[in-house]
């Protein structure tokens, strides 16, 4: 009697288990179909393509092993674009984050018009890149631009040909990157700041800690999970920088003497610009993937030393 009850229970549970599981998968199915079709399949397929000579319409697409990768590594333009990408990442991510943190701390204090500033700083992030680039084209215009007006007419510096002098192309891209992405960082930092329990500050105040000490020993450590998240997200975003360059120098040309050619622009150049060498383009995409993957892994490891979860 007892035994049969237990079996019955088990059967019930088993049946229930499978039913519940099936139900859960059913709910997951739409997301999985969409992700599978548009994310996982292309991702896996890009590896397949990268090992073939995938020359647009060539009827035969032979397996070539690592030949596409070798070809990419032999191309000077790849190394140049890698250097520009690293340059962009270093020169934009850290300053953007530092500035964003500074502004977030200011916005977190009780200042007048706080929500106005919050909106104002977030606006560039939701502004269409193409529209923003048009404004930047004017600001940095050599003859009529606002920036040169200040530099030249007010400060007496030489006119700078921002878009045509290879030395200044990356700085333009970086400045635009900072302007565009800072709002996103600010919002994340603000959320992080508001999560910090006020008790810590009150206790610190009782102990007589000044502003800087409170920031250094309370805010920074307790904000570190947010900082880490912002860092990873910004880093990945910065490695994939494309739109700004594409719009500032139309047609994927990558600026004068390719001085603003980044990895994603290079990828476009190889794959879709007109050469249509999809095998090599897939190789570029995968190199970028591996690069970001390794850097993120290193970040994860390093983060153990400086990220504190409450």
């Amino acid at each position, binding site marked *: 009697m007892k035994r049969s009850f237990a079996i019955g229970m088990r059967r019930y549970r088993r049946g229930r288990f499978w039913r519940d599981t099936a139900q859960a998968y059913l709910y997951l199915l739409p997301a999985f179909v969409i992700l599978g079709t548009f994310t996982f399949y292309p991702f896996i397929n890009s590896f397949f393509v990268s090992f073939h000579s995938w020359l*647009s*319409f*060539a*009827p035969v697409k032979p397996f070539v092993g690592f030949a596409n990768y070798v070809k990419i590594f032999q191309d000077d333009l790849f190394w140049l674009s890698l250097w520009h990408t690293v340059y962009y990442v270093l020169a934009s991510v850290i300053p953007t984050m530092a500035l964003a943190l500074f502004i977030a701390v200011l916005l977190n204090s009780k200042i007048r018009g706080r929500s106005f500033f919050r909106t104002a700083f977030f606006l560039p992030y939701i502004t269409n890149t193409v529209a923003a680039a048009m404004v930047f*084209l004017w600001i940095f215009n*050599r*003859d*009529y631009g606002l920036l040169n007006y200040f530099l030249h007419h007010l400060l007496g510096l*030489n*006119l700078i*040909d921002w*878009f*045509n*002098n*290879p030395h200044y192309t990356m700085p333009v891209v970086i400045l635009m990157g900072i302007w565009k992405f800072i709002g996103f960082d600010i919002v994340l930092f603000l959320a992080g700041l508001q999560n910090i329990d006020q008790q810590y500050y009150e206790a610190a105040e009782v102990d007589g800690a000044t502003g800087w000490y409170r920031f250094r020993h309370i805010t920074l450590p307790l904000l570190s999970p947010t900082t880490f998240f912002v860092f990873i997200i910004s880093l990945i975003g910065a490695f994939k920088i494309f739109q700004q360059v594409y719009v500032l*120098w139309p*047609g*994927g*040309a990558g*600026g*004068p*003497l*390719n001085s603003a050619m980044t990895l994603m622009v290079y990828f476009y*150049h190889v794959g*879709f*610009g*007109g*050469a*249509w060498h999809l095998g090599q383009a897939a190789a570029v995409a995968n190199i970028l993937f591996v690069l970001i993957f390794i850097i993120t892994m290193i970040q994860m490891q390093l983060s153990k030393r400086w990220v504190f979860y409450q």
Partner: protein
Amino acid sequence: MLKKGLILLLAVALLGLFAVNTVAATKKVEVTFWHAMTRANLDTLTALANEFMADHPNIQINLAYQGGYGDLSTKLLAAIMAGNPPVMAQMYEDWTMKFLEADALMPLGDQLSPATIVDIPQSLIESNTYLVNGKKALMTVPFNKSAMVLFYNTDLMKQPPKTWDELLQVSKDLTVVKGDTTVQYGFGIRPYTEFFIQFFHQAGGKIFNEDMTKCLINSEAGIQAMNYLLQLKPYSLYQSAYLSDPFGAGKVAMYIGSSAGITFVASASKGKHGWMTADLPAGSINGESMIQGTNIGVFKIGTTQVQRAAAVEFVRFLLSQKATIEWAEGTGYLPVLKSAAASDAWQKYVATHPDRKATTNMILKGFVYPHQANMYNIRSEIETAFEQVMLGKATPKAALDAAAQKIDSEYLSH
């Protein structure tokens, strides 16, 4: 009695509806045309399509804007790979070569009357003729064609320069420096490949040898063209953005650019100064002008016989004298028939639009890029060499030698 009548009425109405439906379903042939035309160009294209459809009630032309040329090419690439391209599309020559690899296009030469083919300028016949299965065939037809012309500020000069020497002299004379800034440049240089090729060609240059196995960009003509542009550089506004804006603002006294920019020059100069187009100042060998722009091709994969026939009908219409003139008037592109350019209708139009005189002259003095499947990469290499020289990073010889060598080894060897 009333009931019976109602039923009868209903039956007749239903029958009628059914009949209309079947007529519509069997008679209207849908032809999708992928293009990259905007603004006035799109308006003119739409007007032409409507005119055509009014005469051919059984054909529906669906104009589908696909974005800029880059987007159009990418979308065509994807559509052909999926076996489902539109019935017809605008296409550049190097795309066409790729589409031919996929055997995706139907030849158009044998669909046109010999009279029409003879009427198309020779340079445009060349650029639409491809080697298919060892035989030359007219695969596409010219569509939105523009020529390089000289734009000049009529407030600053009465007569435009006629030769390279004059161009240099006038550029010098019209360059105005105040203090340490140049307030007016005589000329404008935009570092893109066709700008250089224009001068290269006039110096007698050929990009490739006869059998397309060697790049000759570093020939004497290449070095001569580079040196000449270097001489012009101090008197030129050098920028990668279009020159129509600084020209309109009076910052640049003249520049060489595609006639497709006429409408932009007109609006940029409006209310500021007079302007006109002129035949290009001639180089040491010739005064020919580069003809650019896309052609129209009809796809044979993923389309039905009926659709292709309808598309061919539309192509014939676009290649009629009346349509090509209407197209040229509305857009600033060239009429693509010699008879149209010589016709009274066009001459009358030119009399009231003198800026079109030079572009009309240039149709018969045009040259085009030779066909090369890797033209995109080859253009990039030439552009890099051009920029290197203009920015003082390399001598003409060093830059062109390096470009030629890379083009030979990377893009012509197989």
